[in-house]
C-alpha cells in the first residue's frame, strides 16, 4: 500500500525513470537466462531434433541426447575424473590456504607483506600456462597424465582465492573471542576448535565450493596435462571437431549444472569474498 502511494506521489520523470530501470533489469535477466534456456532445450530434445531445422523454443522432454551422451565411450570416466580432480583441488587449496589466511588475519610478523605480494602476483600471471613446464616436470617424476598432477595445477589457480577468502572470513571473527577462551583455560588449538571453527565452518565450505568450481571448469591445463585420464572439459575440447552436435550440447549442459547449484549455494559469500579481494 505504502509503495503505491509513494509511486503516485513521485513526479512524472521519476516514474519514467523507475519504469526504465525495471525494463533494463528485465532485459538483463533475459540476456543471462535465454542462452541457458536454449542449451537446456537442445539437451532435452532427441538427437534428431537437435540436428533438425527449424528448432522449436520448447524442449521435447526427450532424454535421447542425454542418454546418448551418457553412453558415449569415455564420458562416464571423464565425469568421474573431473569430480576427482575438483575434490583434490578443493582439499589441497583449503588445506594449504586456510592456515595462511588465519596467519594473515591474526598475526603481525616480518615477511607478511612479501607473502601477500606473492599471492597477489598470481593474479597478474596467466596461470593455465603453468601446465606447459609442469607437463615436463610431471613426466620426470612420474605424475604425467595423472589426476593428482592436474589437481596440483588447479590448486595453484584456487589457492590465492582460498588464502584471500579465508583471510577475510577470519578477520570477521573478533580476536577477543579467542582471547576470552584462552583466559578461561583453553589452549590455542582448543580455542580455535571450540570458538573459531564453528563460526568459520560455513564460510570455509563456501570457499571450498569455489575451489571445486574453478577446477571443474578449467579447460587449458586439463587438455594439456591429460591424455588417457581426460576430464570432462578436456574430453569435450578434444572431441569438438569430431563429436556430433547432441553430444556437445548435452556435455555443455552437464558441465553447467553443478556450477549453477554451487553458485546458488555460495551466493551469500560471493560479495564478502570479493569485497576483501579488492585490497
Amino acid at each position, binding site marked *: 500500500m505504502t509503495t503505491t502511494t509513494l509511486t503516485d506521489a513521485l513526479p512524472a520523470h521519476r516514474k519514467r525513470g523507475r519504469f526504465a*530501470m525495471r525494463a*533494463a*533489469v528485465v532485459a*538483463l*535477466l533475459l540476456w*543471462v*537466462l535465454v*542462452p*541457458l534456456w536454449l542449451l537446456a532445450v537442445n539437451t532435452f530434445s532427441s538427437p534428431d531434433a537437435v*540436428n533438425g*531445422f*527449424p*528448432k522449436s523454443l520448447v524442449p521435447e522432454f526427450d532424454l535421447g541426447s542425454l542418454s546418448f551422451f551418457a553412453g558415449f565411450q569415455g564420458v562416464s570416466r571423464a565425469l568421474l575424473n573431473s569430480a576427482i580432480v575438483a575434490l583434490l583441488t578443493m582439499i589441497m587449496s583449503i*588445506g*594449504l590456504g586456510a*592456515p*595462511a589466511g588465519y*596467519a*594473515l588475519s591474526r598475526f603481525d*610478523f616480518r615477511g607478511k607483506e612479501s*607473502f601477500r605480494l*606473492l599471492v597477489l602476483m598470481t593474479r*597478474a600471471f*596467466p*596461470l*593455465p*600456462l*603453468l601446465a*606447459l*613446464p*609442469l607437463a*615436463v*616436470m610431471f613426466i620426470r617424476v612420474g605424475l604425467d597424465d595423472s589426476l593428482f598432477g592436474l589437481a*596440483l*595445477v588447479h590448486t*595453484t589457480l584456487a*589457492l590465492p582465492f582460498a*588464502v584471500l577468502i579465508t583471510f577475510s572470513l577470519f578477520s570477521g571473527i573478533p580476536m577477543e573471542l579467542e582471547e576470552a577462551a584462552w583466559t578461561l583455560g583453553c589452549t590455542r588449538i582448543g580455542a580455535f576448535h571450540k570458538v573459531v571453527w564453528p563460526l568459520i565452518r560455513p564460510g570455509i565450505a563456501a570457499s571450498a565450493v569455489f575451489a571445486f*568450481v574453478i577446477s571443474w*571448469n578449467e*579447460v*587449458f591445463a586439463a*587438455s*594439456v596435462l591429460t591424455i588417457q585420464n581426460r576430464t570432462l*572439459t578436456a574430453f*569435450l*575440447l578434444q572431441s569438438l*571437431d569430431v563429436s556430433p552436435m547432441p553430444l556437445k550440447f548435452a556435455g*555443455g549442459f552437464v*558441465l553447467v549444472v553443478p*556450477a*549453477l547449484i554451487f*553458485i*546458488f549455494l555460495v*551466493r551469500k559469500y*560471493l560479495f564478502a569474498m*570479493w*569485497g576483501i*579481494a*579488492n585490497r
Partner: protein
Amino acid sequence: MLTPARIPYLLLLPATLFLCAFFLYPFVLVAIEAFTRDGTFTAQNFQTALGHWKFPAAMTNTLLLAAVVVPIQTALALLMAVLVTKMTSGRDMALYVFTIPLGISDLAAGIIWLAIFEQSGFLNSMLYHLGIIDQPGTWLGYQSKGVIFAAVVLAEVWRATAIMLVILVAGMGLIPKEYDEAAEVFGASPWKRFIRVTLPLLRPSLQTALILRVILAFEVFAVVAALGGTSLPVLMGETYHWQFALQDRGVAAAFAIVILAISIAATLVIMRALRVPKEARI
C-alpha cells in the same frame, strides 16, 4: 617448539612452499624453455613463433578481442551494479541471476553460443520463423571471420561480465552513502553523481576488476575453439596447438612468454592509469 613468534611462519609455510614449487619455479622453467633449444641459449623459438604465418593474426585477434570485450563488459557491469544497488525488491534474485555465468566454464559458454549460431541453430530458426530466410545460412563458416569474432564477443560478454559485477558491487558497498547524499543536497543529477562521486571512489575496485578481466581476455581459448575451431587463431590456441599437436615445447613456451609479456604490460598500464593515492583510500 610452538612459540607464538613462530606460529605464523609455520602456518604460512605450506602455502609458500606450494606457490614456490608450482607457481614461481614453473615460470622460471617456461622462460628457460623458451630461450633454449637442445641445451643452448637461442632466440630460435621466438623466431619460429613470431615468424609463423598465423602469429600476426593470432596476436591481432587476441588484442582486438580484449579491446572490444573489456570496455563492453565494464560498461555492462557498471550498469548492472548501479541497477542492483538501486533496486528495492527482488535484489537478491537479480544478483543471483546476474552472477550465474560466474560458475560457467568458458568451454560451456562457447557451446551455449554454438547452439545459437550453428547452421541449424536457434538464430537461423528464429529468422526462419519470422520469414526472413527460407534456408538456414552458415554463420560460423571459415570465410566469415567477422561473424565468428562477433559470436566470440557475445559469448565472452555473456560469460565473464559477472566477475566484474561481483567486484564492483562489493566495491560500491564500501563507499559511504554520505558522499552521494551530499552531492544530491547540492543538486547534482543522478548521472553527475555517478560520474563525479561513485566512479572516482570506485577506482580501486575498477582497477582490480580490469586487471583480472584483461588477463583473462588474453587467455581466451575454449570459447574460440568451440565457436570458430581454427578459423580464428588466438595466442592461447596457438600455444595449445604447438604444445599438443606439433609437440614443439620450445615454441609453445615462446608463445607463453608472449602472453605473459602482454599480461604484465597490461597490468602495469592499468595500475598506473587508475592509481589511487594512499591518502585518498576509503
